[in-house]
């Protein structure tokens, strides 16, 4: 096994403005993201040899990508892996290049959620006995919050304060991002006093439900060097799929083993041994504030039970020692499910190129992205590590 480290490069990226894009269809969004990536890389449709389309519910096959971009009978595979969809489309594209089958490929993630008529997610399950409790995502993650607070003996007010600090930070970062769904400051008090969605999670503990698309053009480092100096390299890719959920009587709901396993795999590939010290930035799956809190521990950034203290100290803010969700995260950039993973890579890419504007970090040499798909107990988790060429 030789792994993926330094074997593929990202040479062009695009990302639409996320939000309630009443003006745009899923195809429109893909065109917007792809043409930004073409322009960014200096490549065009004729250079793309194969493509992977990540989408959870907007399309069933890869064909709509060919139709939108008028691709020339190239192979396209649709990838679906819940909220880890886009990163997994990206991952499959990387492996095809690393295998030497293709030189230049496209990974696209897209989701058009706002045509459903519902304010939350409206993804129907297949036919079944329908006896499972209705647990929209807020409820699933609320159960983790309830147990986390109980486990670490955190009273309700203190717990809500910590979660509010996370949301408030991501809202601040969103104000510095013109593509973000939400671009306004929200105070901790507003967050704490917002209407309940699924106790103990209130409105501002939940991420946006958005439309959007993001695209990455992937190639070999050799070709990348001929195109630009500031390409970025894939250092590690981890994917871990949980099988146990509530089947296990001893799972504690206060950590997500899938994140632990996926990050361990990616760190090992990338040669990271001390994540908190080595990593410069992390774009993580903050679908809910409690998720970001737990992820900080699962990724090895904070010791178990200590993430609240790091949040309170501002460790994960733009000025902190390990900025997290510098672009606003799912919370404020928004969460078009099938696009989010590549959106995260887009931020890492822009930060490494020094093009992150008002939210530009001073040190941005090593970054990770992290996606959690599914529900606590049975996640599909994807972690990717990126670095600059030496």
């Amino acid at each position, binding site marked *: 096994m030789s792994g993926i480290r330094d074997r593929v490069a990202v040479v062009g990226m695009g990302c639409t403005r996320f939000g309630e894009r009443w003006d745009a269809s899923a195809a429109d969004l893909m065109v917007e993201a792809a043409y930004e990536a073409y322009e960014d890389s200096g490549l065009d449709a004729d250079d793309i040899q194969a493509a992977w389309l990540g989408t959870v519910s907007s399309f069933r096959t890869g064909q709509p990508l060919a139709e939108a971009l008028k691709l020339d009978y190239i192979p396209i595979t649709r990838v679906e892996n819940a909220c880890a969809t886009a990163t997994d489309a990206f991952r499959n594209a990387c492996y095809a290049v690393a295998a030497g089958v293709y030189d230049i490929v496209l990974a696209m993630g897209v989701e058009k959620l706002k045509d*459903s*008529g*519902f*304010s*939350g997610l*409206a993804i*129907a399950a297949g*036919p*079944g*006995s*329908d*006896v*499972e*409790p*209705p*647990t*929209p995502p*807020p*409820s*699933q993650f*609320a*159960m*983790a*919050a*309830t*147990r986390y607070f*109980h486990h670490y003996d955190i009273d309700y007010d203190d717990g809500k304060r910590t979660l509010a600090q996370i949301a408030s930070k991501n809202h601040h970062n969103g104000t510095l991002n013109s593509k973000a769904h939400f671009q306004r400051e929200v105070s901790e008090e507003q967050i704490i006093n917002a*209407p*309940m*969605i*699924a*106790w*103990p*999670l209130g409105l501002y503990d939940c991420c946006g439900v958005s439309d959007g698309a993001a695209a990455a053009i992937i190639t070999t480092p050799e070709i990348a060097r001929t195109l630009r100096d500031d390409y970025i390299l894939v250092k590690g890719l981890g994917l871990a799929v949980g099988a*146990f959920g*509530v*089947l*296990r*009587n001893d799972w504690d*709901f206060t950590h997500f083993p899938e994140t632990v396993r996926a990050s361990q795999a990616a760190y090992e590939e990338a040669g990271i041994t001390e994540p908190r010290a080595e990593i410069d930035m992390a774009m993580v799956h903050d679908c809910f504030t409690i998720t970001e809190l737990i992820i900080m521990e699962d990724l090895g950034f904070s010791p178990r039970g200590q993430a609240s203290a790091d949040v309170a100290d501002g460790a994960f803010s733009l000025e902190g020692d390990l900025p997290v969700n510098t672009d606003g995260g799912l919370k404020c950039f928004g969460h078009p499910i099938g696009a989010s993973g590549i959106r995260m890579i887009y931020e890492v890419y822009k930060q490494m190129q020094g093009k992150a504007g008002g939210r530009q970090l001073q040190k941005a040499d090593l970054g990770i992205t992290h996606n959690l798909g599914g529900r606590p107990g049975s996640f599909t988790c994807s972690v990717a590590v990126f670095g600059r060429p030496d």
Partner: protein
Amino acid sequence: MAGIAAYGAYVPRYRLGPDTADWNSRVERAVANFDEDSVTMAVAAGIDCLSGRDRHAIDGIVFASTTAPYAEKQCASIVAAALDLRQDIFATDVSNVLRAGTNAIKSALDAVSAGSAKEVLVVVADSRQGPPRGETERASGDGAAAFVIAADGTIAESRGSHSITDNMLDHWRSPGDPFVRSWEDRFATEEGIERIVPDAVNGYFQRAGVVPSEVAKVALYAPDSRRHVRLARQLGFTEEQTESSMFGTVGNSGAAFVPMLLVSALESASPGDLLLAVSYGDGSDVLGFEATAAIMTAQRPAMGLTGWVDAKQSLGNYETYARWRDVWTLDDTSRRPSAASPSVSALWREGDKNVRLYGARCRACGYVQYPAQRVCVECRARDDHEPVRLSDKAGELFTYSMDYIAGAVDTPLVVAVVDFDGGGRVLCMMTDRELEEVRVGMPVEMSFRKLRVVNGIHNYYWKAIPRRTPAPVVVAA
């Protein structure tokens, strides 16, 4: 001699009463929660009745109600599965008449006497609804009773019966009508109950060679408290002989009313006591029972009528009740897509998981898991496990959320992760809960409930409820 070998009851947790805003009545009555119906209440009474008994000894089941959820589809079979009874048993539904409860008990006594069954479980439940703000709504109540009718081990032996059948249109309800309709009150009283019931009771006395003073307790039907007193007096029973009517606590529980009063009478009966059950509806059934010496030593139900009546919670306002009964329609269309029909083949395939609430214990490593897995979650042993019934296991709340978006009728919906004593964990909804009492570690138990009705399919499953029954006695090894 055939008789009653065990009894049990069920009364829903909630009451409309003096503390209920806009109820406009000082009289208390029991109300089924939005997810309860005659089937779920029958299951709860069955569990109460069967506590400590071998469920696999039951070889017949009769379900009786005027409010069966299905017009076509047997309810006794749903109850039998939820109670985890054997499959090689006779089952039948008795319906359409207020005396369905005593009809069912009499049929079971006849079956046992004839030798066609050894232990028949009779479950009687009703949840009759009157038009909003009317007398029927005020006087009605929801509840259930259950009996094991057997030849051996009886605590009360049959002392004969007498029935009258009289085609009487004083109360009726046609398919599609949620409300019980009735003719003018005085006609129904004078030409109905006050004419027919005395004929039936006197007929019983003559046939059984009994005089009223020999009766220890009479479980007597009447539509309301005033007429209950009047009818008992007319029949020659003293106040002491008349089993307290449940008006003011539970209400008139329809077909289950007399069976529930019979449960109440059994709870305080002494050996030798003669108990009468007197029902009404298109005639009348009079059933006589004599308590045996075994009544002093027999296993009592986990809760019994008294226990359930006391374990109550006042409903805050009438509006909640109106929403539960669909009198108020909610606009939830903007929140979630409408539910699709459950897949009948999936329901069939998952019957053991969903209705019997079977988990599995791995034969290789002993790990208990729900639902049963073909490959063990702990040791990966393949297809090597035995069923574990979780429906009667005590549990604790491991974690929960209170969802303001997912539940329309019961906002917020409490979604619970329950850990069972002895292993097994289930993700389910919680019902019959007051928000203040919900906390990590709270004791819970499982209750069979109706999740929703889609495509005419009543989809039943188990929910967690705050534990109402006493904690099971743990016998030290």
